[in-house]
């Protein structure tokens, strides 16, 4: 019963979070496709616009459209409805390959680093993760390694209180690597738990700041072999094609093991994530659909695409 409610809650939340996306992206596509009796240039043009406006990106859109055209030529797609299904399946398959919810073991210390550019929602997401993991029965400690942004430590501290978890912190402007070191020392002595390191936002182009991140990771590895278990890139769904550069450069610098797409409750479509999935193959972990503490949901390709393509409106 409990689980059923939760499930309903999840889909409802996901749907409502994506409703605008759906409306702007795919419902319109449905309208267009279902509205036209035959496959013609106007249909392809409209599809192209919809995909680009959803931040799927011009080259990738061209690729998708081209493959649809080929199939039409080979008479594999005979009607707009079948074309629609084909487009949907192509996008779903790409996402499905990368759908990988985080499974955290209960019998070991599990370390997570949250990284990303400024304002992508790292601290909020870290707070939400703490809440989720605690609900799953884990002990959780947050590590305030954003010692740069004014009051960031304070912000994380308030999230720790909301989620009812511990926090390791030092003064503002402390060396973030030192905070991480502290946290790892404390963790080593204790019981199995989840350690989430909230790092300062940094543009992926800032060499010195990326070096700082590498240093933090090195210290985690040194103090606890195998750490960090997870490096999560937090990406704002409003971001356009620069998201690719972000993902690639964080990937190259410290090795990203998962992606969290935040702010999906807005009007932005987050279409760039399909391109990231295809080009970089980064596992898709969570989506953020609001500001409440339980507004972080596992990424589900099927549900994501279902919500995108849903026709009853």
């Amino acid at each position, binding site marked *: 019963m409990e689980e059923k409610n939760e499930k309903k809650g999840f889909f409802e939340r996901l749907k409502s979070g994506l409703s605008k996306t759906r409306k702007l992206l795919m419902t319109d596509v449905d309208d267009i496709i279902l509205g036209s009796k035959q496959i013609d240039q106007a249909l392809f043009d409209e599809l192209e616009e919809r995909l680009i406006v959803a931040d799927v*990106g011009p080259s990738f859109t061209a690729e998708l459209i081209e493959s649809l055209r080929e199939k039409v030529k080979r008479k594999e797609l005979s009607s707009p409805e079948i074309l629609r299904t084909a487009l949907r399946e192509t996008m779903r398959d790409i996402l499905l390959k990368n759908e990988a919810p985080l499974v955290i073991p209960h019998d070991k210390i599990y370390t997570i680093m949250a990284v990303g550019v400024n304002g992508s929602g790292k601290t909020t997401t870290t707070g939400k993760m703490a809440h989720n993991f605690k609900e799953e029965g884990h002990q959780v400690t947050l590590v305030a390694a954003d010692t740069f942004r004014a009051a960031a430590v304070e912000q994380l501290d308030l999230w720790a209180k909301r989620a009812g978890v511990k926090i390791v912190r030092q003064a503002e402007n402390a060396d973030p690597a030192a905070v991480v070191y502290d946290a790892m020392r404390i963790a080593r002595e204790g019981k199995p738990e989840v350690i989430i390191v909230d790092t300062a936002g940094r543009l992926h182009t800032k060499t010195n700041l990326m070096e700082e991140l590498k240093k933090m990771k090195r210290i985690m590895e040194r103090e606890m072999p195998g750490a960090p278990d997870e490096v999560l890139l937090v990406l704002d769904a*409003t971001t356009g094609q620069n998201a690719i550069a972000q993902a690639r450069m964080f990937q190259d610098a410290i090795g990203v093991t998962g992606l969290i797409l935040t702010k999906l409750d807005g009007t932005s479509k987050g279409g760039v994530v399909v391109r990231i999935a295809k080009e970089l193959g980064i596992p898709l972990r969570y989506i953020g659909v609001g500001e409440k503490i339980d507004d972080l949901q596992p990424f589900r390709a099927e549900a994501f695409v279902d919500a995108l393509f849903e026709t009853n409106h």
Partner: protein
Amino acid sequence: MFENLSDKLDVIFRKLKGKGRLDEENIQSALREIRIALLEADVNFRVVRDFIEEVKQRAVGQEVIESITPGQQVVKIVHERLIELMGTTTSQLRFGGRIPAPIMLVGLQGCGKTTTAVKLARHVAAGNKRVYLVSADVYRPAAMEQLKVMGEKIGAGIFDAAGLTDPVEICRLAVEEARRGGYEVIIVDTAGRLAIDAPMMEELKKIKSLIIPAEILFVADAMTGQDAVNVAGRFDELLGIDGVIMTKMDGDARGGAALSLRAVIGKPIKFAGAGEKIDALEVFHPERMASRILGMGDVLTLVEKAKEAVDLKQQKELEKKLRKNEFTLEDLRTQMNQISKMGPLEDVIGMLPGMKKIKALKEMKPDERELVRLGAIIDSMTPVERRNYLIIDGSRRKRIARGSGTTVQEVNTLLKNYVEMRKLMKRFTKGGIKSLRRGNFPF
């Protein structure tokens, strides 16, 4: 910023070069490439469509100018149109007649409002106005604390909203407080919100009708995708936006949103935020931005940065010394300090024209730590050594290496370079500093 777009246009126009004249066909292929580049840059789909149409109409049928190549001709047309799109003049802040003049910042979550509020306060304070800051963000944990900590650093007045939970009430009291305190400008930092969040937008409307801002500025992240126009359009519709501030311009986002916002909502972009330091807010210059998009470099900004960083008096003295060939290691140290004051070397190099074309430079990132090491070596010398390098013998070199945490080889290299530099300087008796400014460092 815009670096990749510049790269792309470079490639496109290289393809155009060598064609005899502009015709429908060769324009078409260039336009297709420009279209993709602009879309990759996140310029809004419709803005791109209009842009391409306009450029095409201007280009085709235009007389071919003998002196330039067709490629250059298209660059010129694209460049002009880009400037038109982003506005042809630099916009300043308007304060209106009331005191304190309220300036309100609005935007999505995480776009950089709070940082921008403080940078803007510093900008206003630099114009000799007393600035007051207030945060109306009662939602994000520690948002007020963030504004307070940063605001205190620049010495602005800050409203203490302790115990208050209503953003509208906070703004009302803050304006009163600012008036009492004799402040001339009050900057209101609001909570980030979605444009479709009706109650939250209603809250902004209430604040607006209460404080009647001289300016409502929309803060937009340069990395924003296609949706930028919808969000800004909605804010504009509900509130009436007077201008835009682009943030995070120091990244490699091509910043197409800047073009889109200007074209779609027709409001000027007033400032550009490019860095996490409190002084990294620049007045937005459309013509510079257009040049930058086209890979012509942002020379003017660089010159301004250099002007700020370089102490004129020191320069004159140095110039005198150079003429007499008295350039000491101490002077070298001064020069290095001034270079580091200009900001991260990567930023500086990115502004130079043509630099984007040199692929090798991308891999050869200027190492700022190298500068620090060189500085440390010079700092480890005695004043006498710095004034007369000839006395630095083997044992002195060893001591300097130890003192600076470097190696004797590094000390040797520095001295060798320094000597070469002196020789180089002998050659230009006049305008020596100017050449130095052009970056003719021997290392």
